[in-house]
């Protein structure tokens, strides 16, 4: 009797052990795959999307935003797209975001992965849609392939931009080569640009010389070491700044002490 119960317990433990072993094997393959598909840094998300890490957690892959999009801009990642499967994205070169006034893709999101509050502003105590707060990415100009930078007149991107003269401005410059013409260079104002991609869609070069990249890829960050001293708003960043002192082997004693300590001279 006793032997029997021992053998049952042993059987149970070994069954569990087999399960653990198989799970470990499965976990290896599964987590490698998940890790691989999670890392898609070049993907452009719908308006109002949470930061990528949170977005991947929160999106339930239902496709309601895709169905709400009147321009068929948004797509759901299919197997083989090399993007996290089932999550919404768009490819500006194919169909850009037309920045609808009522941003229909956002309020339909059931999970909050597309955050309504992030694309609304308060006007007279009421929350209203604000397309200026959309921030899917930022347009970047490759000045080597942009024909406007060659001196050929082209303002396709500038005119396609729904925020003309705000997100893309034209900078005039003298063309020294001809001596009598002007360069009309498109320049993206990155904090205004929403990343809708209409400029990329409009670009006339074989492969667009202006294209949209996710903010994390395309934007730098000055950090706390540099402040625009002439700009009140920027200077406000200094408000909570605290001094920090680094002590090294050499600097741990005051410099004056080393002058007063004459011992080594004699």
């Amino acid at each position, binding site marked *: 009797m006793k032997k029997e119960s021992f053998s049952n317990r042993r059987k149970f433990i070994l069954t569990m052990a087999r399960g653990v072993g198989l799970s470990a094997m499965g976990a290896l393959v599964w987590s490698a795959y998940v890790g691989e*598909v999670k890392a898609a840094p070049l993907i452009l998300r719908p308006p109002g999307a949470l930061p990528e890490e949170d977005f991947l957690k929160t999106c339930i*892959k239902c496709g*309601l935003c895709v169905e709400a999009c009147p321009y068929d801009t948004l797509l759901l990642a299919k197997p083989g797209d090399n993007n996290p499967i089932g999550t919404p994205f768009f490819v500006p070169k194919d169909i850009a975001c037309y920045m609808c006034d009522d941003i229909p893709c956002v309020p339909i999101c059931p*999970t909050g992965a597309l955050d309504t509050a992030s694309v609304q502003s308060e006007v007279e105590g009421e929350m209203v849609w604000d397309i200026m707060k959309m921030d899917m990415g930022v347009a970047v100009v490759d000045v080597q392939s942009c024909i406007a930078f060659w001196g050929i007149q082209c303002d396709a991107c500038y005119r396609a931009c729904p925020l003309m003269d705000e997100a893309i401005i034209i900078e005039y410059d003298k063309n020294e080569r001809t001596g009598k013409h002007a360069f009309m260079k498109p320049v993206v104002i990155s904090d205004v640009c929403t990343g809708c991609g209409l400029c990329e869609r409009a670009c006339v070069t074989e492969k667009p010389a202006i294209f949209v990249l996710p903010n994390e890829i395309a934007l730098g960050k000055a950090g706390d070491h540099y402040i625009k001293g002439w700009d009140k708003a920027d200077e406000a960043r200094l408000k909570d700044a605290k001094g920090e002192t680094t002590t090294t082997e050499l600097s741990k004693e005051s410099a004056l002490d080393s002058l007063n300590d004459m011992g080594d001279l004699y």
Partner: protein
Amino acid sequence: MRKIRYLLMRRFVQIGLLILYFGANAYGWKILQGNLSGSLLFETIPLADPYALVQMLFAGAVLATDILIGGLIIALLYAIVGGRAFCSWVCPINMVTDLANWLRRKLGISKVQKRVYMSRSLRYWMLGLSLLLSLVMGVAAFELISPISMVHRGLVFGMGLGFGAIIVIFLFDLFVHENAWCGHICPLGGFYSILGKISLIRVRHDADACTACMKCVEVCPEKEVLHMVAKRSESVLMGECTNCARCIEVCDDDALNFSLRSLVKKEKENT
């Protein structure tokens, strides 16, 4: 016709739902939008896959109320009424595995092939593993590999390489092990097995009418749930039963039928 009445009903529901979802994306119908992970019924009622939600919560997502209500509606529907009915009445993969299984029976593969050992509890290990990986990787782990959502999304929004998932499951079920995916591996099936354990709609077996032909056990995709056949009159109470009604159709003696769970504990009166 009588022999396939439930099969026709199941296909009607499965394909009907697919058409509604497809029409929502393709033609802008406002009846049932989204897909099986999350939907919107008549533009007002949210519906959501409770297993996906559990994974998302393990991944650390902060979820909006809408989706939680949607998940609750679906969870309660299966927990109280349908049991594991999702698997045989809604899931599109069911049509693939049913075809594989039917072919397997017709070709007599199970009679010739030596059985590969596969535990029925594999799905619960998968379920646990999916939650663990969701927690560690910070993303709903099964949702990224689920052939169910892949195929369903594919049918509604465009397939891509999603056909691969169908073919893999079909071949595996046909040539490697009967009911391998639905009956052994799928963690969503495991999830609904646990959730649906207490539901009201149950297949009831009448041992007095039974002639022990065992056709029901042969056709059942979850054979272990029919342990009482020809022995005792009682309801099929194991959560793994998908309420697919194949056993009811195949029974010539009217010994199996749908019934409501008797809430009074008097199941084993006729032994």
